[in-house]
């Protein structure tokens, strides 16, 4: 840093542009810094693309030269062909869009139910000591069950339709959201609650205007993770038994030993998950304008 300052102040007079004193030097320095930042960003993106290309290229080459068995491991070109075929000719269960729509619908419904339930119960138990003491042990027991094994049970209860997938998504989403909302409601700054009460807030107003806003940060961290869980719930449910959906496509491809089909369905799933994640981040930025900026940049 000091070196940079010195060179600029020394070279500036030598350049001898009339009227160009300090301000141009400062501009060029900020410009240089911006350029450096841009270059760094480009470098990172470039390297990322290179890693992907290298990985896919190596995979393709290994498959073509029979280093790995393409029947088991497939290869990028075949996966792409498969995706393209689904896009243009549809899948065995109907159009690709319909499958994605089904899975998203199940995941989203399950997510909304799980989130609403988790937040309501979390805040209620966080605020009302009696409820927490009564229900605490039961929730701990339920949480200890590996919930993904409930998917077959839901299939028996609710049948092949969307309801069983929604149920699997709900149980996966509920617990992380519940625990975060509970913790958020518990750890509200005592000073804020005391201040609100002195200013005239009753219990209901404290809950809605202090506890819930204060807990939103906690809740939102769980929303990110839990949408991923909702997708898992829906996919696993479909995989076990369904009439439509991406999970069914994985199962169907596996049943016909179509490795490319399994990978292709996984790729589509990843893209869908990334897009919804982006939407959530966007919503979060809008909602948390009151937070210092650095907390948001940290993610």
């Amino acid at each position, binding site marked *: 840093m000091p070196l940079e300052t010195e060179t600029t102040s020394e070279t500036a007079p030598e350049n001898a542009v009339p009227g160009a004193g300090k301000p141009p030097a400062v501009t060029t320095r900020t410009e240089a810094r911006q350029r450096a930042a841009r270059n760094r960003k480009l470098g990172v993106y470039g390297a990322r693309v290179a890693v992907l290309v290298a990985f896919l290229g190596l995979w393709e080459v290994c498959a073509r030269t029979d280093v790995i068995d393409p029947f088991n491991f497939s290869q990028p070109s075949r996966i792409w062909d498969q995706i393209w075929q689904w896009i243009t000719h549809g899948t065995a269960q109907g159009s690709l869009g319909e499958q994605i729509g089904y899975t998203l619908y199940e995941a989203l419904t399950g997510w909304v139910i799980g989130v609403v339930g988790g937040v309501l119960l979390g805040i209620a138990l966080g605020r009302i000591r009696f409820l927490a003491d009564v229900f605490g042990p039961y929730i701990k027991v339920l949480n200890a069950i590996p919930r993904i094994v409930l998917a077959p049970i839901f299939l028996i209860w609710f049948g092949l339709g969307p309801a069983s997938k929604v149920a699997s998504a709900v149980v996966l989403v509920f617990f992380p959201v519940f625990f975060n909302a509970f913790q958020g409601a518990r750890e509200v700054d005592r000073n804020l609650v*005391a201040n609100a*009460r002195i*200013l005239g807030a009753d219990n209901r107003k404290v809950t809605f205007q*202090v506890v819930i806003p204060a807990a939103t940060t906690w809740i939102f961290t769980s929303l990110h993770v839990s949408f991923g869980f909702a997708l898992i719930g829906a996919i696993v449910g479909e995989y076990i038994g369904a009439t439509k959906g991406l999970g069914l496509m994985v199962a169907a491809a596996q049943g016909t030993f179509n490795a490319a089909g399994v990978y292709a369905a996984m790729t589509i799933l990843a893209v869908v998950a990334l897009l919804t994640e982006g939407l959530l981040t966007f919503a979060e930025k809008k909602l948390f304008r009151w*937070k210092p900026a650095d907390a948001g940049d940290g993610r």
Partner: protein
Amino acid sequence: MSKTPAIELTGATKRFRTPSGALHTAVRDLDLTVAQGEFVAVVGPTGCGKSTTLTLVSGLEEPTEGEVRVYGEPVTGIDPKVGFVFQQDAVFPWRTVLSNVMAGPRFRGVPAAEARERARDWLGRVGLAAFEDRYPHQLSGGMRKRVALAQTFVNDPAILLMDEPFSALDVQTRALMSDQLLELWAGTGSSVVFVTHDLDEAIALADRVVVMTAGPATVKEVFTVDLPRPRTVEAVRLEPRFVELYREIWASLGEEVRITRERGAGRAA
């Protein structure tokens, strides 16, 4: 004056259960009376129980023993007549400055338009009219403190509890705010209990200065400040009587501070 006192603590004692299960006495057998319209400053060594005393008066905490009365009525829960400026930052970070100041009237059921008008009026008085759309994290510490003051004053409290409200401010702003506080107080006729570590501030502002003992807090000595009002902080500081009072209170307080220090050192060793 035969008026009922604004605040009356008789034999008030407060014990807390510490995490290890032991009982910690924060306030012991405290007697204190504050008349209506009186300004009382409370000084005492750190950790002696000043903040705890204020929470007893506010109704946020109940005394373990003894009695607390506000306008003759025993305190059971939070009294709407009480305003409390906390020692720690307690403005709502998710509300804008204006919305923070509106919070009190809104909680009390005042219509939004009227609440906004009153809040704007108070923001003007604390010099933050231009900042009403900001969020607290975009303000300086001193500005946040002024938001807290406006937030409290907008409710027109008859009893005003202030816990080191100016300790986060620089010396100049502090003097300005003190003068402003005196002006505001003169207009409202409310009773004030003002906790501070700054003796200058205590003497300049108060009718009486209460010195507390090292914890558990009881009243050690009460000094009547017989300086004429209206006062301004800079002017009153130069009066001989001020200097004399300062010396007396300093001696009384210094002893307690020393006891607290020695205890702390003893525990650390």
